[in-house]
C-alpha cells in the first residue's frame, strides 16, 4: 500500500512499489486522462505535475514519491476546464485526436508558470511532447495566447464557436 496525494486528495494505492505512477493513476485511481504512449519517457503523453514539476509518470515508480508531494493530473487542473491553458486550447481548437493533449497541456501549464512570457525557444525547449496528428503550431499559438492574457483573437484563426462567439 502506498499513500499518494493526487489532485488535493490523499489516496491509497494497492500496487507494487515499482509500479510507475502512470499505471497507479490509470489502473488504481481511475484517472485515465493521463495517457500511456511509450513507457520510456520519450513522448510525454503521461506528463503530470509533482510539486509543480512536469514529470513523465511512466518511468516514475510510486515508491519514489512522498506521501505529502502534490501530484496534479489533467483532471485536477480545474474543475470545469476553466484553466487559462484549457480555455486557450478550446478557443484555438488545438486537439486533433487528442491523445497527447493531456500531456501537452500539463507541460504548457508548467512552462507558463515558470516563464509567463516564453520565447519561441523556451517553447521549443519545454514542449518536447510528441504529437503525431500535428498540433504543434496550434499548441505554440495557444501558449502565446495565454502569455498575452488570453485574447484568442490574437492567433488569427477566426474559429466560430457554437455559442456564436469567434476566436
Amino acid at each position, binding site marked *: 500500500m502506498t499513500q499518494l496525494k493526487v489532485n488535493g486528495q490523499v489516496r491509497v494505492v494497492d500496487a507494487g512499489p515499482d509500479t510507475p505512477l502512470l499505471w497507479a493513476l490509470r489502473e488504481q485511481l481511475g484517472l485515465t*486522462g493521463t*495517457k500511456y504512449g511509450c513507457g520510456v519517457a520519450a*513522448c510525454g503523453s503521461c506528463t503530470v505535475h509533482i510539486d509543480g514539476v512536469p514529470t513523465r509518470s511512466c518511468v516514475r515508480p510510486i515508491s519514489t514519491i512522498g506521501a505529502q508531494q502534490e501530484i496534479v493530473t489533467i*483532471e485536477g487542473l480545474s474543475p470545469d476546464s476553466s484553466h487559462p491553458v484549457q480555455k486557450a486550447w*478550446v478557443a484555438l481548437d*488545438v486537439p486533433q485526436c487528442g491523445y497527447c493533449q493531456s500531456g501537452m*497541456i500539463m507541460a504548457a501549464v508548467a512552462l507558463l508558470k515558470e516563464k509567463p512570457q516564453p520565447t519561441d525557444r523556451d517553447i521549443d525547449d519545454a514542449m518536447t511532447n510528441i504529437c503525431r496528428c500535428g498540433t504543434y503550431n496550434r499548441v505554440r499559438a495557444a501558449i502565446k495566447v495565454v502569455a498575452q492574457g488570453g485574447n484568442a483573437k490574437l492567433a488569427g484563426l477566426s474559429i466560430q464557436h457554437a455559442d456564436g462567439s469567434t476566436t
Partner: protein
Amino acid sequence: MSAILDTAKISRRHFLVGSAAGGLSLAFHIPFGSEALAQTGVPEVNAWVVVQPDDTVVIRIARSEMGQGTLTGLAQMVAEELECDWARVTTEYPTPGQNLARKRIWGNFSTGGSRGIRESHDYVRRGGAAARMMLVQAAANVWQVPASELKVAKSVITHAASGRSTTFGKVAASAAKLPAPVADKVPLKDPKDWSLIGKRMARLDTVEKVNGSQVYGADLVVPGMLNAAIRDCPVFGGKLVSYEEAAVLSRKGVRKVVRVSDSAVAVVADTWWQAKTALDALPIKWDLGEHAKASSEAFAKVLREALDAPEAVVGNSNGDARAAIATSARKIEAVYGYPHQNHATMEPMNAIARYTADRCEVWTPTQNGEAALAAAAEASGLPASRCEVYKLHLGGGFGRRGAVHDWVRQAVAIARQMPGTPVKLLWSREEDMLHGRFHPVTQCKLTAGLDSRGEITGLHMRIAGQSILAGVFPQNIRDGRDPVMFQGLNDGGGEAMIGYSFPHLRIDHAMRNPHVPPGFWRGVNLNQNAVYLECFLDEVAAATNQDPLALRRKLMTRHPRHLAVLEAVAERSGWGKPAPDVDGQKVFRGLAQTHGFGSYVAACAEVSVSDAGELRIHRIIAATDCGHAVNPQQIEAQIEGSFVYGLSAALFGQCTVKDGRIEQSNFDTYPVVHMRHMPKVESIVMPSGGFWGGVGEPTIAVAAPAVLNAIFAATGKRIRDLPIGSQSLRRA
C-alpha cells in the same frame, strides 16, 4: 431504433469510467450521446437524425473520428440541410452491427483514403434534408396548412400567415411516423446558399480532449474486466514454440497465460501493468521461421535488380518512352528509395473483447467498424449477426486501424479462452513498433530523354517494390497489377492524377514483396511517388539550367488545376525573388505538387543549411484545392498536421530489418518531428468548386519533395534516399 436503445441501456448499465473510490466517476455510454435517448425513448426521425424533446439534435456519424475532424465536418453537412440549431447538435456512432441489421443504411464505415466527407457528402446531406422535410410536414399536419407555407431556421418551424411556430423537438415524435421521402428525390441546397458548410466552425469534440474526460479504447473499463499484454513472434512468419507459465503464474494479479494464434502469447492479469511485467518475465521459445536472416540491405538489392527487370506492369503510358529515350540527345537518370515506416499512432493498438458461446462484443478504436466486425466474427467463429463492435474515438489512425484488425483478432482469441470475462488487450509501444503494418518499401529509377534544346522527349519511371494490396487485399491484384501503386501518376480517374504531360511516357512497376507486412500509411503510395517525380523534375530543371517552376509550367499546360495550386504557393512565397536571410543564414526554396485523394495540393518549403550541414525548415506554404471546403479551419489543421507527419517521415522515418525483425522499438529509436523542428505553415485553402476532394492525406506527399528540392537549392546535394536523417548536408 431498438438497436440503439439497447446499446444505450447496456452502456448505462455496464460502463463506469473512473474509480468509484473518488476522483472521476462518470457514466459512460457507447455510442456516445445516446444516454438521453434511453431516458426519453425518442424515435429517430431517420437514420441520420434524432431530435429530443429539448431540441437537442443527435446526428449519427458512420465514419470514425481520429483527429481529422470528420465528425464535425459530417455533422455540418447534415445540419446544413436539416436547418437545425448548431448550438444544440451532438453526435453518436451507429454500430457496425446495427448497420448490418439495417442493410447498411449508413453506408460505408471505412475511414481511410481521406474519404470521410468526399464519399458521403451526398447521402448525409440528403439524410439531413429528408429529416427536415419530415419535421416540417409534421408541423404542417398539426396546423393543417401546406408544408410549402412553412419556413424553418435553427430548429424552429414557423407559419408566417398564422403567426404560429414550433420547434423540431415538439414535432419529432410525429415526424418519425411519417413516410420517408425518396432519398434521391430530396432536393439539396445550392452551394451558394450554404450557411454552415464552408464556415470555420469549432470542432464538436474539443472540450473533452482538454480535461481528460475523452475516453479512448485504452482508457475504457468494463466491470469485471481483466487486462492482457501480448508478445507476437518478433520475426514475421515465425511461430510460438513454448513458454514457461509456471515462471509467472504466482505473480500478483496474474490470472492466466494463453497462446494466441500460432505465433503469440498473452498474459492476462488484474491490471495491465501486472500483465506487462509478467510477460517481460515469461520465458518464451520461438521458431523464428524462414525469415530469421532477412535484412533491409538484402531486400534493397532485390529492389535494385528489379529496377532493370524486363517484366513490369505498366500503369500509365503514352507514345514509346523507351524508344524516345534511346534516341534522345541526352539522358538523365536517377535512382530513389523510400523505406519502411511505422504509423506510430500515439495510442497503441487495443481492444476489449467479451466472448460467450452465442455472442462476441468488441470495444475498439477502429477506422472501419465493419471490418472490425468481420474480424470479430471470424476470430470468434460466430456469425456477424451475433457479434457487435462499439467504436471509440481513435488516438490516431493514419491507416493502421483500417484494413487489418490483427489486434481485434488477438483480443477475441484471448477472450475465447476466458468465456464471459471481458479482456482488454493493450499493446506495449514496443509491440506496436515491431508489429506494425508498414509503409511499403520501394525504389524508383527515373530516366528522362532530352532533345538538343534540353526539352524532355520521354520519361520512364520504373517503380520496384512492395505492393500494399498484395499484402492486405490480394484478391484485388489482377494480372499482377496493383493499381494503387500508381497513385498520383494516373492518366485520369479524378482520384490521383499526374499533373504533367510528356511526349512519351512509361510508368511501370516491378512488384517485389518482402516478408514485412505492408499497410495503408497516411498518404499511401502518393508519398513516395511524389518524392520520385517531383525531385526528379527538379533534377532535370537543374541539369538543363531551367527554373523548376518554369519547367513545370511547360509540362502542365493541360493540367490547370494542378498548376493553379503550384502557382499559388509560388506567388505567396515570392518565388523568383531571394528569400530573406534568417539568423544570418541564406534561405532557399523548393517546390512540389501532386494530386491525390481527389484534391490538388502544392507546397513551397523554405530551408537553410548551415556550413556544418544543419538543416532548418523555416516556413512552408501549402495550397489545397479540395473542390468544396467544408471547414477551412480544420483543413488548415490537416495541412499543418500533414507536415508534421510528412516531415517526420522525410527527416527521420525509417524501420529497418535485421535478423528478420524490425530494429526500431520505441520513439527513442524511431524519432519523429517535435515542436522544435516544426516550421511555420501558411495554408492556402482554395476550393474551386464542383468536386469533393479529401484533405487528410494529400498534403503529406508534398512535404518531403518540397524540402528535398529546397535542400538541393541550398547545397547542390541531391538526397535520393529517405529519410534525410544523418546524411551529410554539407554543401557539395
